[in-house]
């Protein structure tokens, strides 16, 4: 479904990603883990074609989007929804207009159908009745939900989440994770960027650990816990500790 092959990226003379190869299968929940500044968000931008890699190929459902003009990327993008790290909601619009944005711009639905669809998605993300509120008046958790609703609005096959639970309280985090799981159960492929281990372990099918723009290891949770790599061991140190605590 998504295939990065030897992707490298340099910005302003600084190496952001170096030789990343990554493969994400249809329907799975893939987690990209790593410390701050590792290049996690950059990988999502490459997958969406917002940034072009300097070298390497980016296949989305078999189509390489690395070297093609913006106009040809547009149809590929319509298969992908993204939840940006800082939400990137359109702050001049209200909740309904944010969620309806894609449908109004690109679908053939009439305004009544769009309104019905938006209401359905908003109730799915537990935001019923917030249609007319401007997004800057919402709380952090609600903004995140609106961002998720906007990403889901056109039933994309792939959904990219950039730090969906960062900065949220445990209750909100859990409900966002449940939401992601439900969306995944409907058959969507999910790519989740995070640095929160518990989230990664609780919902991820495969984990990819990156650091300093390089892929350190890809595998299941078990692979990670059995890893010989020192960085991976350090990163998962918390989990070993928790396990030790439970034994006590």
């Amino acid at each position, binding site marked *: 479904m998504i295939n990065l092959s030897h992707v490298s990226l340099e910005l302003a003379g600084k190496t952001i990603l170096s030789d990343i190869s990554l493969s994400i299968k249809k329907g799975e929940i893939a987690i990209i883990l790593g410390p701050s500044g590792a290049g996690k968000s950059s990988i999502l*931008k490459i997958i*969406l074609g*917002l940034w072009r890699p300097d070298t390497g190929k980016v296949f989305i459902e078999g189509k390489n989007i690395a070297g093609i003009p*913006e106009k040809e990327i*547009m149809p590929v*993008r*319509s298969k*992908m929804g*993204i939840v*940006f*790290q*800082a939400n*990137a*909601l*359109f*702050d001049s619009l209200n909740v309904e207009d944010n969620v309806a*944005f*894609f449908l109004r*711009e*690109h679908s053939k639905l009439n305004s009544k159908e769009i309104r019905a669809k938006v209401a359905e998605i908003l109730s799915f993300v537990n935001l019923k009745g917030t249609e007319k509120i401007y997004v800057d008046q919402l709380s952090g958790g609600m903004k995140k939900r609106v961002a998720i609703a*906007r990403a889901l609005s056109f039933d994309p096959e792939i959904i990219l989440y950039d730090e969906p639970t960062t900065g949220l309280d445990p209750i909100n985090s859990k409900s966002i994770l449940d939401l992601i799981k439900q969306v995944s159960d409907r058959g969507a492929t999910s790519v989740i960027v995070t640095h929160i281990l518990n989230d990664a372990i609780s919902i991820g099918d495969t984990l990819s650990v990156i650091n300093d723009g390089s892929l350190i290891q890809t595998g299941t949770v078990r692979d990670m816990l059995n890893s010989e790599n020192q960085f991976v061991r350090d990163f998962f140190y918390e989990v070993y500790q928790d396990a030790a605590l439970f034994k006590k």
Partner: protein
Amino acid sequence: MTGIAHSFKLKIYGLQEYTLMLVDLFKGLSTFWKTWADAVNEMYWIGARAFMPVLLGGIFVGIILALETGHQLDHFGAKTLVGRTVSLGMIRELGPVITGLLLAARTGAKNASELGAMQISEQIDALRAFGTSPIQKLVIPRTIAALVMFLPLTAIADISGILSGMIVSKLSLSIDTSFFWHSALSSLLMKDIFVGFIKPFFFAFFISTISCYYGFSTRGGTVALGKTTINAVVYSSLIVLVLDFIFTKVVWELL
């Protein structure tokens, strides 16, 4: 030296990016009607809401022009020429330039700060991610709105300037209004009106695209946003003066 070379390189790079944006803009014009609603909204903000400042600008420039030239011409016993000076001055030069400068500040600051804030908060990326071209959605409606609104605003500045010139001429130079009016109209040629009214279209196009370009080029935080807004207003104002010079010198002689 390398610093100068580097900043020169950045300028050239910026010019190239700006040109590419213009190419995209012209390509996107064929489907401008898709963003008609956005364009109408922009017309309100950059056009209708600019009515007062432009009106006041026109009035005061007209007054100053009438008083200054009136006193000078009075020395030569030629104060009857005030009407003519005010009408030619307003329609050919000061009306368009004052409107252009006011709108460079107003529209330039608006476009650069709005688009810059959208850039910083990744809303521009979000537009692209949701399959919408930022040029199509943001630049084209703003440019069309400017192209539509700058001409009537310039006309307002022209008219208010001539009328206010007429009133002060009557009050402080005791020139009869009908006399002023006659001298103002009789000296006007089609060529004057044409040059005066073609300028706003060029001002509109460049103010709008330059300020949108600066908005898009914002990288970083609030300080960067301040800088791009300054750049947008400064370069928009300068382009008004440069274009005005080109029209006065080159186009006038060609006609």
